[in-house]
């Protein structure tokens, strides 16, 4: 590799040079559209797509726009709920897959696979049909019982919708983590007379914690970014911010869309860097971190 190439460094290798240029072009391709969103969020004009002059007026107007403010708050509420659901369900399923294997694993993994490969638009219309059919996520009448700012019908529809995909992702991450550790650690604890509850708390939980944390933060970012399922299942008055942006596309896009996107981008990147740091701390290689973060592990 690089050490082998070292003695010939003074001669320019056309293949190497070509690869370097290619890599720069790919990075440019990947980053320019994000870069332009950040730049155009400072466009003071009325239409996002035609640059007028530099200004921070759209950031200031964000604060005054109750619809956007409400959509961001909804997004955060949805993300917290979906994260809690998918982290608990996914972790339990992950433990069962890693520690209680049997024939059921094939069926369950098949289901997880289907959840992951079904186009999101199909999931979205399926949920829409289903919610209309059963009148709410948990059947008729349920929405009348619980209706507050923190738990209500509109939020529940979104929690379930967002938790679907993230539960599958968390399940895979936790399973991969626990499969990497021999069950003998838990057996040793049993040998030392630790009761099951303590065994879980002192051995299994600390072992799986990085995966659970990574899974939770992934679920949070996935939910924060979800556009398609949200568009279909959100009820009027509690729609998350990507739905606001998506519906703005039908009219003229204003730079406030770029401003809110920039803020949410920073939030997502912050959450992801925490995931990366947590995984790195727990001894994963960069490659494993990447695999976990993309859910490809």
């Amino acid at each position, binding site marked *: 590799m690089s050490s082998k190439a070292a003695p010939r460094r003074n001669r320019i290798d056309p293949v190497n040079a070509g690869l370097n240029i290619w890599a720069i072009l790919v990075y440019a391709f990947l980053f320019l559209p994000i870069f332009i969103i950040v730049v155009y969020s400072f466009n003071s004009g009325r239409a996002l797509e035609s640059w007028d002059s530099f200004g921070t007026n759209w950031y200031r107007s964000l604060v005054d726009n109750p619809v956007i403010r409400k959509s961001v708050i909804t997004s955060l509420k949805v993300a917290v709920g979906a994260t809690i659901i998918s982290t608990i369900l996914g972790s339990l*399923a992950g433990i069962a897959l890693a520690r209680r294997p049997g024939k059921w694993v094939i069926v369950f993994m098949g289901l997880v696979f289907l959840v992951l490969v079904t186009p999101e638009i199909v999931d979205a219309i399926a949920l829409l049909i*289903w919610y209309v059919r059963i009148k709410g996520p948990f059947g008729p009448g349920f929405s009348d019982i619980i209706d507050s700012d923190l738990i209500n019908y509109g939020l529940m529809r979104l929690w379930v919708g967002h938790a679907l995909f993230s539960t599958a992702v968390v399940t895979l991450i936790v399973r991969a983590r626990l499969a990497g550790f021999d069950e003998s650690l838990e057996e040793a604890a049993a*040998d030392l007379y630790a009761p099951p509850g303590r065994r879980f708390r002192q051995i299994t939980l600390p072992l799986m914690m990085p995966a659970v944390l990574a899974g939770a933060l992934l679920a949070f970012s996935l939910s924060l970014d979800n556009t398609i399922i949200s568009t279909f299942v959100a009820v009027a008055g509690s729609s998350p911010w990507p739905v606001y942006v998506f519906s703005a596309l039908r009219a003229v896009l204003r730079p406030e869309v770029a401003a809110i996107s920039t803020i949410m981008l920073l939030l997502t990147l912050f959450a992801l860097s925490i995931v990366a740091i947590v995984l790195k701390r727990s001894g994963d290689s960069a490659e494993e971190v990447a695999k976990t973060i993309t859910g490809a592990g």
Partner: protein
Amino acid sequence: MSGPGQDVASLPQPPVAEARRGRGLHLPRFALAIPAWLLFLFFFAVPVLWILYYSFGYKPSFLSGQPIATDQLSVSRYGEALSGTFFLTFKNTFQISVIGTFLCLVIGFPFAYWLAVRVDPKWRGLLLGLVIVPFWTNFLVRTIGLRIWMGPQGPISGILQDLGILGSPLDVLFTKFAVQVGVVYNYLPLMILPIFVALDRLDPALREASKDLGAGRFKTMRQVTVPLAMPGIIAGALLVFIPLTGDYITASVLGGAKGNMVGRMVADQFLTAQNWALGSAMAMVLIGMILLAVGLFALIGLGLRALVQRKRRVVLAEVPA
């Protein structure tokens, strides 16, 4: 845990056997996964089966106030979904996803090779992280970013006009071309990551051995690197092809009237046309199309592998006894 110490035997025997038998005595092995089972069954499997059921229904008259009727079941919605402009959209979508997957591979492979083989390991983690950032930026926002670049008032149009290459504003937005660029952009990281993982796992000694045995650079690439990276290439192709075929957002942001895709067509039946039966039939055809393509892909892959293995079989010269 128990070293070869002498006093181990004198300790009271821990209840290993009891503990082992005690676990899972009352509960089935999948018990912990039951909440996830329920979630997947009730909010994924059953609803998707419901789409299948609805796809045999029809759109009732406006007066009934219902978006769907299932008192008479028929397959005529499938006929409708596969005729006229709808069929054309299926064809265009298939074309966009095949070309898109191929372009992602052509762009992604050299990049993944560079990242896994040529980059100083010190920087590899950071550079890999940079590939993940766009992947985790909101899909919709990224696509809007691309739309600003390609728009008639965007920077590319401006530069080309200033240079005198274009006489009028750039006119690529809302075409099939724009959607094609959009999907390559949106799904490229999904191709790069698995190929990177496959190449990163590859022992550099294999490439060196190939070189030592007299193979040139391209022969090493063709006969060692690419075949060993095949699992990554296949994973990448699937990770790109499957979501790309069902893509809804890219065509909505960049496609306009000329660059439609199936995902958007399905969504329109539910959001605007209110023809749930037709939308459901289209969704089933979409799933069928993806499964068929993946199946074909797998068959071709297996066939190619069998062919290559037969051709490559090393026949040792028989040693006379």
